[in-house]
């Protein structure tokens, strides 16, 4: 499904060059539920960003479903991000000036659908994450856990084949975290491939495989 070959990511500022990822080789098969772990600064978020096509690797190849996406032009990248990937960010990144349901609708705006269909899909996704009663609230009025759930709803509203989640339970208490993990597992059981960055070992236990990173390199 996702294939990374000798992928490197370096950041350059005016004076310093930092290597965030060094020679990563990784394959994620369809239907897997994977955890990426490591100490802070080890590059796990960077790895996720690359897999989610949010950033370009400095070196190496990335393939999605056999296609070399690192060569894709903007239009194709956008289509892939929209139709095949779903991303859940650590900081949620909800648009503060839009209501919950409007936030969840955003990915569908870039697809040809009628307004009614969009609304239906968004409400369904929110129902899935248990926020049906808050659809017209604004992000500022929700707790951290609720905002996270909105972010998840937004990520799944388009039925992506791959879901990438960066610390999805990072800001939540253990009960809430368990609930979220449950939703993710359900999604995985229904066929969504999930790659999750986490530092919580208990969550990692519930995944199929754990990828460990240290200082930008894979370790075992």
């Amino acid at each position, binding site marked *: 499904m996702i294939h990374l070959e000798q992928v490197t990511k370096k950041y350059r500022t005016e004076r310093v060059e930092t290597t965030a990822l060094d020679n990563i080789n990784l394959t994620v098969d369809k239907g897997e539920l994977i955890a990426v772990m490591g100490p802070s600064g080890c590059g796990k978020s960077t790895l996720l960003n690359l897999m989610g096509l*949010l*950033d370009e690797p400095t070196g190496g190849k990335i393939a999605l479903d056999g296609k070399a996406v690192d060569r894709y032009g903007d*239009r194709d990248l956008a289509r892939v*991000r*929209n139709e095949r990937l779903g991303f859940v960010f650590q*900081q949620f*990144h909800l648009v503060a000036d839009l209501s919950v349901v*409007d936030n969840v609708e*955003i990915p569908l*705006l870039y697809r040809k659908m009628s307004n009614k269909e969009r609304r239906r899909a968004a409400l369904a996704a929110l129902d899935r994450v248990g926020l049906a009663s808050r659809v017209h609230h604004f992000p500022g009025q929700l707790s951290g856990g609720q905002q996270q759930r909105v972010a998840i709803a937004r990520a799944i509203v388009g039925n992506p084949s791959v879901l990438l989640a960066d610390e999805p339970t990072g800001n939540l208490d253990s009960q809430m975290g368990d609930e979220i993990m449950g939703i993710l597992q359900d999604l995985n059981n229904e066929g969504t491939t999930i790659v999750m960055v986490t530092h919580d070992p208990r969550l990692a236990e519930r995944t199929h495989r754990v990828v460990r990173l240290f200082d930008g390199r894979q370790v075992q």
Partner: protein
Amino acid sequence: MMRHLLKLVWNRKRANALIMLEIFFTFLVVFGVGTLGMYLWDNWRRPLGFDWHDVWAVRVNMQGASDDTFTPEQVVTAARLVREVAALDPVEGVAGAMMEPFSFGAMRGSQEINGRRVTMDLNEVTEGFAGVLRAEVVRGRWFQPADAALSWRPAVIDEDLAREAWGGEDPVGKRLDKPDPGSSEPETRVIGVVRDFRHHGELSGPGNFLFYYKHLGDPKHRPPRSLLVRVRPGTPAAFEEELTRRMQGVARDWSFEVQPLEQTRETAFRRTLTPLIVGGIVAFFLLLMVALGLLGVLWQNLLQRTREIGLRRALGASHGEVRRQIVMEQLLITTLGVLLGAIVVVQLPVLDVFGSTLRPEVFTSGLILAMVSMYLLATVCALYPSAMASRVPPAEALRYE
């Protein structure tokens, strides 16, 4: 998509309100400057209504005569003068006038016609005037010597005056002034209409013109203060000396100042142009200021939305879609500001603040120019920064602080 954008714009109304206000004021400035520019350009390109090429003006100073007192001898001399000048070889035509075109100073009159007060510029001219200055008569006729025997006062008006006083009706034969039974003054009637006559030159605004008849040789009419002499093209400046000599021969104690209308026009031009240039320079910098101010505010506003732009890209929007969204939002806000501005500005003709100086065509084109400029400005101010912002990889954009 439109619904989504409308919701976005509405939910951000407080922040957008300030931008909208700025757009409103910018629109007012652009409209003001633009309409002024259109007004000047409109004036410039409208035809003068006469041809000043190869026409020389002669200022006639009858020694000892002031406006009120002139002698029958002087009247006769003036008539002789005109005949002699007309007989000279390079001269194609001679006319007399109270004031020559482009002269500083204006003679204005006002009459009540059809219940409204109409103002106009005046001049008293002889029958040769239309020919010498090539003023085209479009209705009725010009003055002729037989008019001296009329019991009423003939007048020729220009199209502007005809339009303002009588609309589409044929003004020929109509009475110009209000009937005053007690007065012994003869009534004034229109005998003809000429094309819009712009006595003050190409930079002057719209106005009405009225010609009265000055009959040479009529002891009731003061001899003309100016002679307008059309000379054959190519007549050298040296002829001025000969002309003056001949005139001096006819009227020994009178004095004459000859000046080609080209020169009078030049003087008038320089006089009017200088304040315009001053205004133009200030207006230029003013426009620069408002355009760049708007650009700055919009750009900065957009920069703040870098994260949002990154987010939308992460969710699958292409460059084009992001740009389109930003531009559309910008146009929505601009429309609000422009609409408000248009409402304010439309009060000008409604309340008739500028009267006939502001022709409807000038106002409308100024308004359209301002609207188009604002939309253009807004689009450019939205396009470039959003293009820049969307070039950043989503991951970076989302980290933007």
